[in-house]
């Protein structure tokens, strides 16, 4: 591991060469909006919100999967980037059936927060009003695909952390949807351990716990980094030989 220096938004910073631009920016309180990224899960670079400019290239780079290099000059808030981010959220808003006023995570929703952050007040594209399925067959949880933004956090947390791989994606393009096991009711899934991790990491009201009222539910994602760190460091093994 080597130490290198780079510039983000005019600030000279030092970083390790195995760190991503997003990690470095967050360590220095430089805000970059993200949706698919979640600390503790692998990165897939799919939401495209974290795209940044790197001097010397016309292309845009996802901060969550781009590693720092010596001398890089990175810009995270140019006019072009902000416009693209606003349009991404605009596209998401038009894609699903996001009825915030009657959602249990209203006011605690990452999609809503992103919309405020990028200054989105309305969408210029027609709403697609897709027909999406809601599944309340699980005793504790509900999946409402109308509110799903296909970030695949649930897929990854279930596969990578819980090891159950209940969730996956079916179909392609605009018809993509999250399915449980072989596209069967969640409640009949033999692989689901009812751990609830997917519900906690879901950025929107797509995965929710039963019994919550409108605007009542707050998601917690912090637990993830503790689990993952503990696993990497094998903290459950007593190195000093004591019980």
């Amino acid at each position, binding site marked *: 591991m080597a130490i290198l220096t780079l510039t983000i938004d005019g600030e000279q910073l030092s970083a390790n060469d195995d760190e991503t631009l997003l990690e470095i920016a967050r360590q220095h309180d430089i805000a970059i909006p993200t949706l698919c990224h979640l600390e503790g899960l692998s990165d897939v670079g799919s939401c495209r919100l974290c795209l940044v400019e790197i001097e010397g290239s016309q292309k845009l780079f996802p901060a969550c999967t781009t590693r720092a290099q010596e001398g890089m000059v990175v810009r995270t808030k140019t006019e072009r980037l902000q416009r693209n981010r606003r349009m991404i959220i605009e596209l998401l808003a038009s894609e699903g059936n996001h009825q915030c006023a009657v959602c249990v995570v209203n006011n605690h929703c990452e999609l809503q927060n992103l919309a405020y952050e990028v200054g989105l007040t309305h969408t210029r594209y027609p709403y697609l009003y897709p027909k999406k399925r809601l599944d309340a067959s699980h005793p504790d949880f509900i999946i409402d695909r109308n509110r799903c933004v296909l970030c695949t956090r649930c897929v990854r947390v279930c596969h990578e952390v819980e090891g159950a791989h209940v969730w996956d994606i079916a179909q392609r393009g*605009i018809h993509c949807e999250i399915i449980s096991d072989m596209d069967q009711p969640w409640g009949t899934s033999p692989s689901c351990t009812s751990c609830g991790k997917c519900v906690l990491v879901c950025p929107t009201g797509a995965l929710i716990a039963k019994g919550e009222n409108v605007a009542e539910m707050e998601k917690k994602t912090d637990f993830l980094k503790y689990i993952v760190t503990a696993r990497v460091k094998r903290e459950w093994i007593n190195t000093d030989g004591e019980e």
Partner: protein
Amino acid sequence: MTTEDLHELAEKETDRQRQLRDRILYCAAAGCVSCGSHATRDAIKKALKERNLEKEVEVLGTGCMGLCGEGPLVKISSDGSVYERVDEETGRRIVEEHLCEGRKVGAHLIDTSQPFFSSQQKIVLEHCGKINAESIDEYIAAGGYGALARVVTEMQPQDVIEEIRKSGLRGRGGAGYPTGLKWGIVRKAKSEQKYAVCNADEGDPGAFMDRSVLEGDPHRILEGMAIAGYAVGANQGYIYIRAEYPLAIERLKLAIKQAERLGLLGNRIFESDFNFRIDLRIGAGAFVCGEETALLRSIQGRRGRPRPRPPYPSEVGLWGMPTLINNVETYANVAPIINRGSAWFAGIGTPKSTGTKVFALAGAIRNTGLIEVPMGIPLRNIIFDIGGGTPEGTEFKAAQTGGPSGGCIPAEHLDLPVDYESLATVGSIMGSGGLIVMDSTSNMVEVAKYFMDFCMDESCGKCIPCRVGTVHIYGLLDTISRGKGTTDDLALLEELCVMVKETSLCGLGQSASNPVLSTLKFFRHEYTDLLSKPESFVPSVSPDPASAGPADGPAANDGHDSTTHA
């Protein structure tokens, strides 16, 4: 198998062919098969049998002969005559009149001195239409596997890579990445296990170059892959081919079996330490599975979705191992470069785009089919000399290259040399080799809509700009093409096209806007002509509530404007 054994096999086959009185070649590629070349073959065989000629005259199926629009095609080996539209009756007459009486069947004879034939230069397709696609002996007699023998017994891997690098060969899958450079990266990657993959997914609508090579000369690909395997240090190859190509799959399976039987694939090739196996992986025909990272996932049995690069497959590929991935046509160029030298290859084409390129000519053009031309040839020569121009009474309007990722080139750029850089300057790409000609009857908004429909359908759905953006671009194009669009819609369309291009994860989304942007660049009036015109609005004639009011206000936006429920 040693080099001597290979030469012996070649001689034996050449002798066999020499002893025949003649050979009748019929095109057994998918195009001619679909218009009845098997029935033609049977009729020819029957006619030969009736005259007791079946032992002296061999009838054999070859790869694509090029002029697909005039099939079934039949060629007489001894004098090179080619016949078009050979139905069963014509087949019988060819045997009777041409073979027995020495009189050519005039009505079906093709003039092989016409530019369609004389302006082409065949390297990739040199065997197509000449050898039996199902015989390894014929491939060997034509010099096949000689390059592999030389590479394995006489050359160091580094020298092979150097030779490919010096030839200037660039990837024919679309992006034109220098092949020698890619091989060098895989060679340098440290790993016990490496792979060589052939991308035969060919999902562009209207493209059939790779299919034709695989159907007509499958051993060429196996030989190219084995040479690549030796050069980069891979011992396992995969050919990823779409299930829609059953004939190519069948021929590849047969070719692999034949090569294995002769020890040209497998262990200790040419009695060296080099082992190389090739397996087929059949794709389900998703366009996005042609994208290299999605393709590799699909080979692993996972969902075909692209992932961000870097890391590139050359470093992290199949099952995490360094993996070389090249296109069919790229591999087809390898053996000729080894045989004839990099200097020969670099002398063809232009300094930056060397060699030849195979194109599938389609659309409003007289000679549709498969052609191979030196890089840098002016577009005009391809369309008017080789293609014979547009049909009677119509005028050339544009040529589309690069399929759903490419652009339209208008008449004013007809003298553009066809190479990677020049095509990029007019907003198109070389692509894999689809070339669709459009005449004055084509509507460019419809063309853009057609390709956007394709991209929207084929989007894997992983990233937001491509998954949702293509749907709205399509919707805007549809609104405009129905005469319901406003200047706002056009502005929205352009903004969205740029955004999808800039922000999408993989090449599919990044290039999906190209057909729209290039038709907007060269045929903008076709869009603006369709916009609803508020200034010519006469209130007394059945007022349309949607177009009332100024076109620049949100209210005129066909009800599209709405606030979020947030």
